[in-house]
């Protein structure tokens, strides 16, 4: 259930019709239909519908505890919804075999940990698991795919190094590389920039954009609104377990929406370097007099 009655600052409809309607119109490979998810009696997501548009980067944003990670985990089948269904390529994901889901959908959970001393090559090679069996544990196909995944994420040179000896940014690249080695063109990333400084976060998101350019559909959860705005083609804004607005960042990101979703006072200006809006938060400290809370609605 998403509302689209918000008034945008630049006029025109809030929801980017082009992308969203194409998605709802059936081209979407992954969608939630009326899903309700809860932990031990507490309902986190209530009867939510969303369709992931194919071939673009979709980012789920929202305040802490709004259920954005829960939504991503439900879409990836980590969580079983109490009601409703998640549909992957036209089939109820709950009825698919775990292994078949893993062949279609790559998932990178938040802050994964590798055993100490495990090498990059071994970690990325594990991404082939859904395609392997007891007898067929390592084929030349596997080697080719892993080689490509390493090269694509720029970690080929690190293949022999232990994962725990890498920097945070390199480590995240390696994990994304493992997800790529799964050989899916649908990637779900839960906060891929957690614990990374801004430069490394940009580095990882540039990689995500490369993957998108090469044909992947990406769904991710991000905390940083400006990074989400810059790197996504489709934003899903959540609040209290339901979708407040969704669409292209240019249409969705407005001062009003930010206030409604996050309770954040901000100015939305033209990004001096990008073609997307830029959010300038207004706190209380060091703000010029004209922007103080007087005109708060």
């Amino acid at each position, binding site marked *: 259930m998403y509302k689209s009655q918000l008034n945008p600052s630049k006029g025109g409809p809030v929801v980017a019709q082009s992308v969203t309607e194409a998605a709802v119109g059936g081209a979407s490979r992954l969608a939630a239909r009326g899903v309700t998810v809860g932990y031990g009696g507490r309902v986190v997501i209530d009867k939510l519908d969303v369709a992931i548009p194919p071939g673009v980067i979709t980012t789920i944003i929202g305040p802490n505890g709004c259920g954005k990670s829960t939504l991503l985990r439900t879409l990836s089948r980590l969580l079983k919804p109490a009601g409703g269904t998640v549909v992957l390529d036209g089939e109820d994901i709950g009825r698919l075999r775990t292994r078949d889901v893993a062949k279609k959908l790559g998932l990178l959970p938040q802050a994964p940990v590798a055993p*100490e001393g495990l090498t990059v090559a071994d970690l990325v*090679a*594990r991404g082939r*698991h859904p395609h392997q069996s007891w007898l*067929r*544990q390592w084929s030349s196909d596997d*080697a080719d795919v*892993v*080689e490509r995944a390493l090269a694509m994420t720029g970690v080929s040179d690190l293949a022999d190094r232990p994962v725990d000896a890498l920097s945070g940014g390199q480590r995240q690249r390696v994990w994304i590389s493992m997800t790529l080695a799964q050989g899916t063109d649908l990637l779900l990333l839960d906060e891929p920039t957690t614990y990374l400084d801004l430069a490394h976060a940009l580095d990882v998101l540039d990689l995500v954009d490369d993957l998108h350019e090469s044909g992947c559909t990406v769904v991710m959860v991000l905390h940083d609104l400006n990074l989400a705005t810059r790197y996504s083609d489709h934003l899903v804004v959540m609040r209290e377990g339901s979708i407040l607005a969704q669409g292209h960042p240019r249409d969705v990101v407005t001062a009003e929406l930010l206030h409604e979703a996050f309770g954040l006072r901000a100015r939305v200006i033209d990004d001096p370097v990008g073609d997307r809006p830029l959010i300038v938060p207004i706190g209380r400290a060091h703000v010029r007099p004209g922007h103080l809370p007087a005109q708060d609605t």
Partner: protein
Amino acid sequence: MNVTEVKPSLPPGVRLGRVSFVWRPWLLCVTLLLAAATFLVFCVSIGVGDFPVGLPQVIATLFGRGEQVDEFVIMDLRMPRALAGLVVGIALGVSGALTQSIARNPLASPDVLGITSGASAVAVFLVTVSGGTAAAIVNSAGLPAAALGGGLGTGLLVYFLAWRRGVDGFRLILIGISVSAVMEAITTWLLVTADIRDVARAQAWLVGSLEDRSWGEVRTALWCGLVLLAVVSCVAFQFRPMHFGDEVAAGLGVRYGRVRAVLLLCAVLLAGVAVSAAGPVPFVALVAPQVAMRLARRPTPPMVASGLTGALLLTGSDLIARTALPVSLPVGVVTAAIGGPFLVYLLVRANLR
């Protein structure tokens, strides 16, 4: 067999018809060396005793080409004990490798998870509680079976107490330690209040020993062990992504809840088989996987090498316990005395690098 060298950075694969696996020469070497060393110690151990048999004769007899006298001494008198050592060592090594991998924590050995202490408590209860009923149970079901039941029951209790929307390794260990403490308290209480003759019997069982094994006992342990190891080797492939945690494993198509439950049950049963065959031999399950992991230079305990390390440690300790020392010691004393320092040595050497 053709070895396909891909690119220098990736581990090469080996293909034999439709079967393919990763080629890890070092792991293979270490495993083969461990197997050879275990076999050697096994043979030496069989040869040593009041009627010594030379190593060549032992090996000839094992392959059915020995003399009749040797055959009687070896196959009828010494084989049960040596085989028991082998089976118990492998079972403890694999059990430890499984629990440590499942909990993702080297502390999580079957000793810590309450299996050993549960088996001990039940065994001591049966030995010490006077009256016809306990004695009848001991005679009919046998002490080993009762101990196995005690270990299994305690292991499952710990697992269900630790269950909270999945199993967290740290929680598993804390609950295991608590339950173990209760079981040990019960054991102590039983020993303190029991008749002094029963206490002596119970104590002899509690230190862990391979003395006086009969073919009957060993055969049961052997078959149980083989069945469990077969199950473990079938499921172990699905377990490999679980070293990265449940969520990554689920993303890679593993039904982690089911895989973990099966393997943990196997680990508990293997430890139970070991305890019922040899009493609670300390330290093997904790130290063998860690030693195997460092010898093989792998980030996680390798299953086969862990089992062989356990067998080598136990067989070697039994040999030392019987021969090298002026008094014959229970094997459990020696496993701790050898395994502990060796693990410390490996850890210190790693620090110095």
